[in-house]
């Protein structure tokens, strides 16, 4: 009813304006003066930088669990190889440095830990039908949001699982990423000769996660064969607008799985590293204000932590997410809904004992305000067959140019109840928190 009333009001306004309107052709003065052109070198290397600070406050024990400052610098050096064909060669460099303020055991003071990494350091060749990138890079697959199940090419930093922005979780790898891009077909081949370890948080607070032991240089070369990852993706955009991709990727396991062992400082959880073959499909289709999207992926030989923390169970697992987004063109309200279904064998892949399934729904609502300067949004994940609930409200304010302040909270409820078992989010059940993030982009 409200919608109809709004439409009627809008229609009446249009009619009145149509009667009153007479084109004048008068030129309005721009509100802002035209800025000075940037120097040629600036346009050429396209420098970008970001400074930021993140801090998180855990509600259960009222402690600051994260104090992280960071700086990022990005450069691009494009070279036109041929004006005739439009071929280009571009050097991309993205460096990120972190300064963590870590609590000492006393809890009253903190020490600082500085780290840095290349988020990208690669050369990209692009011609009429080819795009080849060699070097450190991130490669993103998938269509759905919230849980990025098809995003399997890069290893992950899951030490803070609630901080699920792929930009932060994905770890860049040195890879050959070649794409053959035809009119409606795309073929992508990825080869990663040397992979990185994913980083995990301990699921059990009283056992630390063992650091990978330092290896002699010769051992790193041996890893070339053992740890090489690779696969391909084939995509097709149908005339109807249906965009579908099928992919196969052989990689080291990305999910946290552990085995208890004895480390130099006592019992430690050792991350389990097995080769997994993943096969999947992604698709999307837009119809008017609606966008339909979906990901489905099957992992063969995925390790899972055993209940006794002994040898891991090796399972086959299928994950799928189907979703729909609705964007109102005029008001820019966005509503998204997804259905999640996971299936895996109860025993190991060799001795399966029935199939276990996990079903859930998730939703996202966002509405830009003040001409996009204020963005309130909320993401909710609700388990249907297990007690999983994750509510993540977020408010981002862009007061000036590249300056932003973001306040977000994560409320997780995943402990067992009378009716439902523990959910997949159970290890995070005590991690309810508020996270504040400020950044300045140049």
């Amino acid at each position, binding site marked *: 009813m409200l919608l109809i009333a709004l439409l009627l009001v809008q229609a009446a306004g249009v009619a009145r304006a149509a009667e009153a309107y007479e084109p004048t052709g008068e030129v309005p003065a721009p509100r802002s003066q035209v800025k000075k052109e940037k120097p040629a070198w600036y346009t050429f290397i396209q420098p970008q930088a970001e400074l930021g600070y993140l801090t998180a406050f855990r509600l259960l024990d009222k402690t600051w669990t994260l104090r992280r400052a960071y700086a990022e610098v990005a450069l691009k050096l494009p070279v036109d190889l041929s004006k005739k064909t439009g071929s280009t060669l571009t050097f991309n460099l993205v460096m990120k440095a972190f300064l963590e303020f870590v609590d000492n055991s006393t809890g009253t003071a903190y020490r600082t830990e500085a780290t840095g990494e290349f988020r990208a350091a690669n050369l990209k060749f692009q011609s009429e039908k080819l795009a080849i990138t060699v070097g450190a890079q991130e490669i993103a697959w998938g269509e759905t949001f919230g849980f990025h199940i098809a995003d399997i090419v890069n290893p992950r930093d899951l030490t803070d699982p609630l901080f699920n922005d792929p930009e932060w979780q994905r770890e860049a790898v040195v890879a050959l990423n070649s794409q053959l*891009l035809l009119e409606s077909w795309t073929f992508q081949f990825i080869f990663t000769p040397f992979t990185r370890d994913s980083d995990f948080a301990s699921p059990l607070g009283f056992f630390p996660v063992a650091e990978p032991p330092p290896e002699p240089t010769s051992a790193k070369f041996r890893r070339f064969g053992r740890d090489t990852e690779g696969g391909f993706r084939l995509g097709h955009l149908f005339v109807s607008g249906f965009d579908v991709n099928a992919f196969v990727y052989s990689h080291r396991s990305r999910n946290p799985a552990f085995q208890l062992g004895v480390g130099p400082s006592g019992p430690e959880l050792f991350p389990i590293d097995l080769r997994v073959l993943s096969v999947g499909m992604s698709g*999307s289709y837009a119809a008017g204000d609606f966008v339909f999207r979906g990901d489905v992926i099957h992992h063969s030989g995925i390790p899972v932590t055993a209940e006794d923390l002994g040898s891991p169970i090796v399972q086959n697992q299928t994950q799928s997410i189907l979703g729909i987004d609705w964007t109102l063109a005029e008001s820019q309200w966005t509503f998204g809904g997804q259905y999640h279904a996971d299936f895996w064998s109860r025993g190991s892949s060799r001795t399966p004992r029935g199939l276990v399934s996990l079903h859930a729904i998730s939703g996202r609502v966002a509405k830009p305000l003040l001409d996009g300067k204020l963005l309130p949004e909320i993401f909710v994940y609700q388990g249907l067959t297990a007690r999983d609930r994750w509510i993540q409200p977020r408010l981002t304010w862009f007061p000036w140019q590249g300056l932003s302040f973001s306040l977000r909270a994560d409320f997780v409820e995943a402990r067992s109840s009378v009716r439902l078992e523990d959910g997949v989010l159970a290890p995070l059940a005590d991690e309810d928190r508020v996270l504040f993030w400020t950044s300045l982009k140049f």
Partner: protein
Amino acid sequence: MYRFLIAAVFCSNVTAFALTPDEIIQRADEIRNPSESYLMKVRITGNDGDPAVFEVQLSGNNRTLIKTLEPVRDRGRDLLMLNEDMWAYIPNLKRAVRVSLGQKLTGQAANGDISRMRWSGDYAPSLEKDSATDWQLLLKATKKGLTYEQVRVWIQKKDFRPLRAEYLSLQGKPLKLATYQAYKPLAGRERPSEIEIKDAVRSETRSLIQIQSMEIRKIPASAFQQSNLGG
């Protein structure tokens, strides 16, 4: 000499009168932008909010890549349009996400205002009025998913310059009003460097699209692929 001039004037008038609405629109399109693939830098200023600057790469009338240069907060949020399909590159996901055509770039300017710079091919024109100085044509969409269902345009007879346009709803109600102005040399010929767009309902709500530069350039087809965005 006289005979030659008279013949020339007569011939030019015959040519003008003999033009079909399709030909008039094609000639106007040639004024608005080059027929080859090209790159332009566009600044959009609205009543509210920060000015936005985009680098727009166009190839034909169905492939457009819009890179956001300003405001800084939206930098990297590129938009790819292939026919009636659209993808947005989301920097914090580092991947292209399928979006509906309703997703806005900025203020009063709809995506279609800078991504579809040709009327021919998208619209079927019919002549409404033929005055001494200009033609008034009504263009009706021949494709689904276009930003505007109908457009009424005024084309200057002497040089095929588009003067102004009314963007109409399916029912013929004016939605927006565009004025093509500030003609200056761009990519080899005189073209409108500014398009002022007013809301038909709230006339104080307006955007000014300024084409700061335009350059004919070979843009590889691989640049217009959703899996190749952001690189």
